[in-house]
């Protein structure tokens, strides 16, 4: 299968990026050093190509009511230009995807989807479409770039007349950036302050260049998927395919505050049932006590017995400790619980810690 490329592909390769296959896309994993890119985002700013993400517009007089049935949170409560984190479930309550829904008008919503799930999501949504609602998959024509880090506001403000100090977390604002029409969103996936800028694909290169230039004096670096993963992991944000999948429910993933049970949605009965009967497994944060780095699928033990497995793990560049997220038997979720992770056939001591691992 041919890998897809974003409009910024040529820029990445011209700037020394190492490209990898990610969800069917040829994406930069790093330019120079994952650690350096990670630190740039924590201390100054980083720019991410997230054009591979999917975008679907949902419009029509019944758009809000219909969306409400499709996801766990309640998009009907959104004001215009407000955003909301959601999970889309199957009937059995497990997660098809996690997504951010923006309300762009009274009868116009925009869903931002994980790259590897776009086709699956769009098919699912189309199958359930009702009269009075239209769905437009705008993924190919839409570019998305994330500018993240403490200097993000200063950098972006140089290029726009929109007063960014008035734009709150999980809100968005249409406006010109470097003379190009965009949607500026105060969202991100790093645990830092920052923005995501949505623009027509043919303008991606121009906006990317303008941002890199505006950020040059502020320590801005382009950042690949390698650091994107360590940043989101320190912030304990779930990644579909790791903490969420079709075998996992949003309750197990600890996403309770994004589930509204007093309205109907696909999977609600299963989720409610699960809530009453108790969970089989639960997502926890783990920090290593012994040396070693926990990685995806490593077994987790409690008193010598296998009780779960690692979903994501790394050496945290900020904390300089090995950290991980893991699913464990749900009675073991207490912070301070001593566990072990099987690292190359040897149990290494670990402990359950509070999430997120890093908070700005």
């Amino acid at each position, binding site marked *: 299968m041919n890998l897809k490329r974003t409009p910024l592909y040529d820029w990445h390769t011209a700037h020394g990026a190492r490209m990898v296959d990610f969800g069917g896309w040829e994406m930069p*994993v*790093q330019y120079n050093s*994952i*650690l350096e890119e990670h630190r740039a985002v924590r201390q100054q700013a980083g720019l991410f190509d997230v054009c591979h993400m999917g975008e679907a517009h949902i419009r029509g007089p019944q758009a809000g009511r219909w969306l409400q049935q499709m996801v766990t949170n309640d998009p009907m409560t959104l004001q215009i230009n407000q955003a909301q984190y959601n999970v889309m479930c199957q009937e059995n309550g497990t997660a098809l995807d996690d997504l951010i829904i923006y309300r762009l008008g009274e009868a116009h919503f925009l869903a931002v989807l994980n790259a590897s799930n776009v086709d699956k999501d769009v098919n699912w949504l189309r199958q359930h479409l009702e009269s009075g609602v239209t769905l437009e998959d705008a993924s190919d024509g839409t570019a998305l770039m994330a500018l993240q880090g403490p200097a993000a506001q200063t950098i972006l403000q140089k290029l726009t007349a929109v007063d960014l100090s008035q734009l709150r977390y999980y809100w968005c604002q249409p406006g010109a950036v470097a003379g190009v029409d965009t949607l500026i969103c105060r969202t991100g996936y790093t645990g830092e302050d920052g923005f995501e800028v949505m623009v027509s694909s043919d303008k991606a290169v121009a906006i990317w260049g303008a941002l890199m230039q505006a950020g040059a004096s502020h320590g801005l670096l382009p950042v690949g998927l390698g650091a994107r*993963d360590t940043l989101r992991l320190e912030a304990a944000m779930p990644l579909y395919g790791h903490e969420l999948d079709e075998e996992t429910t949003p309750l197990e993933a600890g996403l309770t505050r994004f589930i509204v049970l007093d309205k109907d949605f696909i999977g609600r009965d299963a989720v409610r049932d699960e809530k009453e009967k108790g969970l089989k497994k639960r997502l926890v944060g783990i920090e290593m006590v012994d*040396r*070693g*780095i926990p990685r995806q699928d490593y077994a987790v033990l409690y008193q010598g017995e296998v009780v779960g497995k690692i979903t994501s793990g*790394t*050496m945290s560049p900020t904390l300089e400790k090995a950290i991980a997220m893991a699913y464990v038997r749900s009675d073991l979720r207490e912070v301070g619980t001593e566990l072990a992770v099987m690292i190359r056939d040897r149990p290494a001591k670990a402990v359950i810690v509070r999430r997120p691992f890093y908070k700005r």
Partner: protein
Amino acid sequence: MSLPKEYRFTRDHEWAKLDGNRVRVGITEYAQEQLGDVVYVELPSVGKQITLKQTFGVVESVKAASDLFSPVTGKVVETNPGLEDSPELVNQDPYGEGWMIVVEVKDMGELQNLLSADDYAAYLESLG
């Protein structure tokens, strides 16, 4: 990429350098470049017997863990104490400060079977 002429190399990108009847072992410039930032190195304890082409340790970058394969057979007599706190030495100076173990080798002939610097350079070339 310039390779130290007196070193010997494996196709798994380890190097071996003769030092009396001992052999110093590490990974190559190419290997550290492919790995990216090294954040953890797991080495055998001193006294352990290791075998040609068998795993003797693990080097971990931010993204993944990779096995280290021994270029020789023998007994580990020294490990690099600097790598515990500064695994980045592997990136910064793979042929020097980033060495991993010293092995007391029984059969020095093993070393002759490894790639010379020129052969390894040609091998890297073939990888593209």
